[in-house]
């Protein structure tokens, strides 16, 4: 199974919102729909998509797309 790109997961999760998933600095709070609930659910979707598990601290500290990408890279996943 090919794993989806992180930008595709973002697009699906925030369906109906106009944004650039590759914009630098993108992260929680970037627009109204991206609140703390939506962010938590995003991390759960990423866990499922890449079969990884984030710690409690990861769930509270990973706020930006860049931080998420780095956390995935540290587990050997290019997203």
């Amino acid at each position, binding site marked *: 199974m090919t794993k989806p790109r992180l930008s595709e997961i973002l697009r699906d999760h925030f369906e109906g919102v106009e944004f650039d998933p590759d914009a630098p600095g993108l992260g929680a709070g970037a627009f109204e729909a991206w609140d703390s*609930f939506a962010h938590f659910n995003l991390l*759960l979707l990423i866990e499922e998509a890449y079969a990884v598990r984030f*710690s*409690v601290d990861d769930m509270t500290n990973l706020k930006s797309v860049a931080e998420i990408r780095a956390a995935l890279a540290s587990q050997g996943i290019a997203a």
Partner: protein
Amino acid sequence: MELRLTATSGLLAGSRGWRGLAAAHNLDFGEYGDWARVLTAPDEARALVWVVLLDDFGPGEEEVALAALDARLRQHLTVPTLVTWASADPGSVLNGARHALPSRAASQRFETALYQRAAQYSALHILCLDELIAESGKRQFFDARNYYAARARLSVAGIDGLAWAIGQMLERIVVPPRKLLVLDCDNTLWGGVIGEDGLEGVRLGQDGIGAAFQDFQRRLKILAQSGVLLAISSKNNPDDVAQMLDRHPGMVLRRADFAAMRVNWADKPGNVTALADELGLGLESVAFWDDNPFERAEMRAALPQIYVPDVPGDVVDWPKALAHDAAFARFEVTAEDRAKAAQYQARAAFVAASDGQLDRLGFLRSIGLNAQAVPIDASTVARAAQLCAKTNQFNLRTIRHSAADLLAITEEPGNVTFLTALSDRFGDHGLVGLIIIRPAGKGAAEIDTLLLSCRVLGRYLEDWMLAEAIRRLQPQGVRCLRAAYVPTGKNGMMASFLPDHGFQARANGSFEADCESIYCPGAALYDQAPPV
């Protein structure tokens, strides 16, 4: 449905697990932990789902919770309140070696309190998650990480399971369970093909796969006892199936357990439609179980209203699949449900017996037909209104009188109104007919309503009702009876009713007859036949 959800801890609103439920209902999760406020809010008139995890309750909180639930139930008697709850974690099971585990005692206390309220409030529905959680396992259902990161105890898989169970419950609140299950025979009720393997060769009972088929039949029998009708649609020689039903020692189900049968080589959608007609049921009440994927696909394509479950590939999984199928689950099994099954069986027995009788009138004379006129009053008006609402086929004018209308009509002087109770050797059929005749000028009256439940057609009960009504009209000086047939698309069987009974067409499209010349020969079939 507009749905308000609240919980004793977080619900991961917006999680993937809620997608299925959100596709069917409008979900509002409110604020975290707002259950006490929502339950006691007098203006929260939406259906309410309250998720209670007993692990969340601190000391004394259970009493507070039940008091809040009482407030909700008293304020909203007709809006559904769904309490979906799970036991607390028991800790080491060794703690239960000598005394009941404290968590289990707490669960029993809470459950008892819930069902006491369910007995009092019909809007309360209870969904215990413990069994559901046991199916997938607590490790799957809960995620402690989510609790410490977001105060939500469930995993995404847990939310998925919870949402599925809530969806099932809500569907059953709105859609009644299936009333008729139509079954195949070969490789469904028994293993093998009776036409090839013979009575000794089919696999049923004893060990292995034969025991699974027999357990499947036991499950079917339990369903039948809860009020689901069973029928057979199979491609076999009728004699082969009859042999199995009458003679095979392993059969749990016998001929009397089936309300009706179609054993022939015709296509199954046609047979199942005929079975539903014979039993007077709509296709949306029917389910179909067949081991053959081709037959299932054909049924789904031809009759999408019929429920065709995805039958497991291995028969060993069938007894459980049937027992767990929500399509047949019902909130209550009343004495009426059981009586209903017997009434339908009586109807099917009548149809089957009369098919074999060349001398139809001789047959009808032999079955002890007995009709009684029953007045419309407080104890019978609900049934009269139900007959007005539901009878489509044998209904001359299809006027949907309400219970209040019917009581008012009964009070009016000059009206002749009665329900009709029927019994015969196939059973007591209950109140199955209604006639209302109202004055229409000097010496004349008019048929307002004449209807019969389709369960009892073919017995000329309409003749008895008409004759009995005329007997009651004559002392009032009524000489002439008028009537009109109002076609609806479903009551075509009434098109020739009036001319057949001696009514003459008038210029305005209605009909008229002298009471003397109205023709009701079938009335003579009844023990209590009035002298007309």
